[in-house]
């Protein structure tokens, strides 16, 4: 091996402090008499300095913040029956493939969230709801699992609830495992309603909620 090639290897490792004592001594002796290698040492030190400053560990809390604030994404494909879309009283927004208003420059502020507990009609079900301000509407992120299988003319519907008043956030169906992760919209007025519920509906055209409540919970301000 060419001597300078070998010393260039040693120079590179010297920057990292990875030379054995005898290698360091040999290199220092060589540098005393070699201008070319002294210039190379200077250049490699600059590269080393740039690389050392190239990465600085961010504060540990930052990762938790980044991961917690990621927009929800649908994890499974899901279908909405044509009868739901034909129901004029329902407000349904379906987003698939990772397109979110956040990337279009809109700003959203987390407003409230709710953990949904099952009723006796769906004992194995659970759900999480997150409501965010989005101007004239609120954006609703819903994540459910364990819901019973639906008949072909049925769907589930998410409601904002205050006493006897209801505002629908939209309808959805679930996959074979009773799960769904969906994004919906609702009028901003719904944000004032303190509770949420999910009912099991038939596509009869009646916009009123059925008595078949499967999940419910109280919204907590965040």
């Amino acid at each position, binding site marked *: 091996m060419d001597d300078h090639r070998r010393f260039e290897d*040693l120079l590179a490792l010297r920057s990292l402090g990875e030379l054995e004592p005898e290698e360091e001594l040999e290199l220092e002796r060589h540098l005393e008499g070699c201008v070319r290698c002294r210039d190379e040492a200077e250049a490699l030190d600059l590269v080393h300095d740039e690389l050392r400053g190239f990465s*600085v560990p961010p504060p540990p809390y*930052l*990762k938790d913040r*980044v991961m917690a*604030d990621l927009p929800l994404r649908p994890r499974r494909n899901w279908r909405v029956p044509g009868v739901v879309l034909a129901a004029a009283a329902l407000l349904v927004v379906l987003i698939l493939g990772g397109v979110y208003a956040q990337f279009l420059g809109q700003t959203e502020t987390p407003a409230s969230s709710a953990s949904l507990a099952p009723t006796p009609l769906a004992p194995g079900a659970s759900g999480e709801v997150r409501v965010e301000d989005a101007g004239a509407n609120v954006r609703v992120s819903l994540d459910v699992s364990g819901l019973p299988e639906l008949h072909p003319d049925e769907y589930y519907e998410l409601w904002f609830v205050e006493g006897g008043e209801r505002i629908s956030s939209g309808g959805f169906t679930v996959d074979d495992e009773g799960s769904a992760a969906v994004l919906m919209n609702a009028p901003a007025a719904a944000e004032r309603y303190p509770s949420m519920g999910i009912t099991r509906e038939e596509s009869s055209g009646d916009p009123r909620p059925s008595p078949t409540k499967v999940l419910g919970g109280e919204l907590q301000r965040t």
Partner: protein
Amino acid sequence: MRDEDGALIRRIATSGDDGALSTLYDRYAGMVYAMGLRLLGDRSLAEDLVQDVFTSVWGKAGSFDPSKASLTTWIYQIARNRSTDLDRRRRARPASAGSEPLVFLAGGEGTHHLAEHLDVAEALSLLSPDHQEVLALAYLKGLSQREIALKIGVPLGTVKSRTASALRAMRRTMLPEGNANG
């Protein structure tokens, strides 16, 4: 590492795998944060940069084309674009006695021109996957050559040879012959 990065991006794009994003965060957040500190001179804005970049990676994973750029270069470009926006925000802030001072990083001046920082990322992106891997483990993870050898399962002599070769390649790209003084 390039193949692993490609697999992680695909998992994010196709199934919204936040575990994959977590792994990419561990690999690249330090690079983005350092860029933020250097270019923006403000820890809060550097944190915003990290958050913006990884939110973009999460949402735009489907648009990453490995035939056009390495993941290092793609993330770097996202960070560069976002840092420009954040820099406008920084400049719009009125100066005050309570402003956080610029951060002085070990190994360099307190501030660097954008072009100088670009050189490091671009030089890294030109390296082979093996070379990128050993430099990433040495400088981003702070592993010794022996630790790197154990981690990637190759002899210590091979790691040293790769590292030396990678550093020489970086030197040739960043400081062409005759420009050792910058």
